[in-house]
């Protein structure tokens, strides 16, 4: 029975040491972010965005899929009217819906932290640093700085990549040849194995996998992540047994 609420959690620690830990641990991922940022910078240049415009997008939007959608609309010239802006913004809400799930999952950890710390932490949130942080949290990491530091570790190469791609064009003829597009998949696979080993749960894994594959066959892209995450959460919700 769910009658006993856990006592309110204390605010998590937020230290420079935690920030440093997250920043250092996220470094292997930053290579992929740099190349992805370069790809965006190059695309933006091809659509005649100036360097400042490209950097402003990466700084304020900080989301590859959202920026590509915005730049794509600019290429077609339809980005000025209110209806065009509203439709692109709604598309971005759907493209990034998975972040709602990421934020919710961070709540038990960071919910009691002050807003002045959680706001930048959420601003710098990305797929890679969320996966990394949740994995570390399952192993006992409790410092808010870890999430912020690993997020910052991805934000910096995103800006640097945008600048390189926009200013210098593509330095890499074919990023896929280096496997950088596989980075997030590879990290998720490795960390998924680690998490599964620590707490094996076949029902959650199988349901998440089925949900991902079903949605992938209809609407590939970010929605497979949302479907898998929700499906796994729902299974855990209903199978929960109070100890």
């Amino acid at each position: 029975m769910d009658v006993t609420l856990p006592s309110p959690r204390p605010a998590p620690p937020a230290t420079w040491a935690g920030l440093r830990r997250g920043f250092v641990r996220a470094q292997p991922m930053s290579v992929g972010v740099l190349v992805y940022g370069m790809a965006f910078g190059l695309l933006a240049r091809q659509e005649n965005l100036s360097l400042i415009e490209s950097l402003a997008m990466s700084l304020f939007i900080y989301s590859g899929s959202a920026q590509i959608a915005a730049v794509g609309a600019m290429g077609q010239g339809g980005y000025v009217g209110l209806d065009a802006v509203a439709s692109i913004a709604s598309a971005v809400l759907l493209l990034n819906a998975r972040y709602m799930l990421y934020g919710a999952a961070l709540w038990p950890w960071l919910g009691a932290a002050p807003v002045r710390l959680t706001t930048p932490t959420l601003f710098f949130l990305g797929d890679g640093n969320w996966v990394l942080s949740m994995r570390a949290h399952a192993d006992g990491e409790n410092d808010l700085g870890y999430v912020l530091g690993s997020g910052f570790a991805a934000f910096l190469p995103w800006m640097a990549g945008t600048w390189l791609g926009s200013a210098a064009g593509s330095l890499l003829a074919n990023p896929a040849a280096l496997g950088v597009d596989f980075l997030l998949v590879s990290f998720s696979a490795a960390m998924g194995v680690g998490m599964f080993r620590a707490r094996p749960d076949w029902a959650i894994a199988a349901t998440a996998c089925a949900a991902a594959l079903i949605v992938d066959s209809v609407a590939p892209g970010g929605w497979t992540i949302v479907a898998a995450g929700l499906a796994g959460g729902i299974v855990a919700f209903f199978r929960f047994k109070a100890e």
Partner: protein
Amino acid sequence: MRADLVPLLAAVAAASFFCRVGGFWLMRFVPVTPRVEAALKATPLAVMIGIVAPVAARGRPAELVALAAVALVMRFTPNDLVAAMVGVGVVAVARLLAV
């Protein structure tokens, strides 16, 4: 900076930021019962599976070999960063060989 770009930039930035803070903010109004906490705890693994499963299902040899390599490395070391980098290396080599 073109002036007519500003509304688009502002709207897309707002939408992106809303997604980042929205789920976290909504949880203010959800009592975190042990059951809800179990659901939230299950999402990271489920999301990781959601990222990997579609790639595995595409069945391209380079990716499959790389995922097998990740699983293999994870058998011998607890270091998931090492396993992940091995996976990226294998996919790069496999794509190079396939030409």
